């Protein structure tokens, strides 16, 4: 009797979860389905849920589209631009945030706790407040129209990553650093030889989040970039959409898939760290 009750409950739960999963996955399935259809098929009512003819060539066309305005392959260039910014930002973020978080987590200095509270408080500042003066600053430096505004700040730390790494560093037993000190290690070599190797998972989370932020960023490139040859994928996709005026949906969906897939692929390979990172940072805020 009791067991049947549990069974019925489990079946009901799975039914609900499967139904909801379908709802959540459907838009992505629709994205991929449309990206593989010939153009006539995208305009059919009622729509076909699976392409009757698969047109993989849509992807090749999405990659090479733009010849009429630029005369070259924008999506490959956009991808390269985005990757370049991401690599520069990620390496800077990992290096600087690790050092800063170490200073906050494992060294005692006057005013540290106040400084850390201020760091946390900066997360409350909405970007629109900073947008204009930052633009004016980068303009004065002659950085507008280059990638620099999009990656240089990452080399000077971000509150969110500092917070995340500090939480992690605090879980490493202090005896380890003390032993290193007794062995005559300098503070810097304690940091690089003892702490950093242990912190690899947390550093990976910071790298992932920074990469995602660059990959997703739209407003930054929109403000600072004007030359189409320097566009990132986000800007490129938006420009692609505007040029198409909503007509060639299959190509637009193929282009969107190109932007979406790397992030989802990255997620699948790093799932555990990703979820842990979100859970850790989310809770202790």
């Amino acid at each position, binding site marked *: 009797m009791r067991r049947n009750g549990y069974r019925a409950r489990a079946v009901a739960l799975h039914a609900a979860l499967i139904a909801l999963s379908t709802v959540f996955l459907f838009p*992505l399935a629709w994205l991929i389905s449309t990206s593989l259809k010939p153009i006539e098929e995208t305009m059919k009512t*009622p729509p076909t849920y699976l392409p009757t003819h698969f047109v993989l060539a849509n992807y090749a066309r999405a990659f090479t589209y733009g010849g009429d305005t630029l005369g070259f392959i924008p999506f490959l260039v956009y991808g390269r631009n985005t990757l370049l910014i991401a690599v520069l930002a990620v390496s800077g973020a990992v290096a600087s945030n690790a050092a*800063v978080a170490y200073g906050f987590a494992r*060294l005692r200095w006057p005013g540290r706790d106040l400084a850390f509270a201020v760091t946390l408080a900066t997360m409350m500042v909405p970007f629109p407040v900073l947008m204009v003066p930052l633009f004016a600053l980068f303009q004065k430096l002659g950085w507008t129209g280059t990638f620099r505004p999009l990656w240089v*700040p990452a080399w*000077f730390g971000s509150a969110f990553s500092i917070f995340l790494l500090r939480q992690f560093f605090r879980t490493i037993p202090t005896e380890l650093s003390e032993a290193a000190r007794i062995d005559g290690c300098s503070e810097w070599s304690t940091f690089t030889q003892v702490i950093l190797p242990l912190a690899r998972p947390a550093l990976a989370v910071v790298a992932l989040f920074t990469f995602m932020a660059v990959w*997703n960023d739209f407003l930054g490139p929109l403000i600072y970039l004007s030359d189409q040859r320097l566009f990132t994928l986000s800007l490129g996709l938006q420009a692609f959409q505007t040029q198409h005026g909503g007509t060639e949906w299959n190509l637009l969906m193929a282009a969107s898939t190109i932007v979406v897939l790397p992030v989802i692929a990255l997620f699948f390979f790093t799932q555990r760290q990703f979820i842990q990172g979100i859970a850790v940072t989310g809770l202790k805020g």
Partner: protein
Amino acid sequence: MRPPRREALAGALFVLPWVVGFSVFLLYPLLASIYYSFCDYSVLRPPVFTGLANYRALWRDEVFWIALRNTAVYAAWALPVSAVVAIGLALLLNTGVRGMTVYRTIFFVPSLVPMVALAVLWQWIFNGQVGVLNDLLGRVGVRGPNWLGDPAWAKAALVILAAWGVGNAVVIYLAGLQDVPRQLYEAAGLDGAGAWQQTRHVTLPVLSPVILFNVIMGIIGTLQVFTVPYVISPAGSPARSIYFYAMYLFDNAFIYHRMGYACAMGWILFVVILALTMVALKLSERHVHYGGI
């Protein structure tokens, strides 16, 4: 033990990048932004101090009020809808069903989709003529509206879109739920509490700090909504129904070159966010339980 002085010096050196970053990319822009908000400023020419002129002009600016109202209405729907969807999904996942990792991944994946791609994809789904959503609704006998083409429905479409991307919050809620001590449920069960009562009197109170955190992050994020509506329509069409605060701020700064005006808007947004956060914290005093139950 090394002398604390050396440690203090080392600490300062380690934190140095952030001190520079904080001063250059945060503190300086903040102060500059306050100053610019009292100036006539177009970046091309040096700022000219005009006192409260920007704020006075905003008060009389019809578009400012439209954008503010749109943002408030959107937030008033998007925040609770997303919260209910996220908490609901997290509660379902927390029942110990098999394959939880798979379900959790499925709900999380949409929040990985970059904003621009998200906007483009949903524009296609919401399409009034050949959109798949209206076809699906038609199959169950509902005549779908012309979503993004109808001022009465455009914001609703954005709320649906926000609810689709709650995966992030689901993961945070789930982490919170897994911290709820098992004994609490056992005790409640012995007292004869049913599933709903357990949720109401055990789960939600223990989860309340996480809810508060998500609500505050939600307020900050939602009031700054920009990318998705901007990609759908930079003018916030139809009929400016999805023209939001950050879009008007952006237009003032980079299209009309009224940088001082844009800064004044930025500060009003900051004050609104701060005020709402304070209200949320104040209201939560009675309802949020921290540990020690």
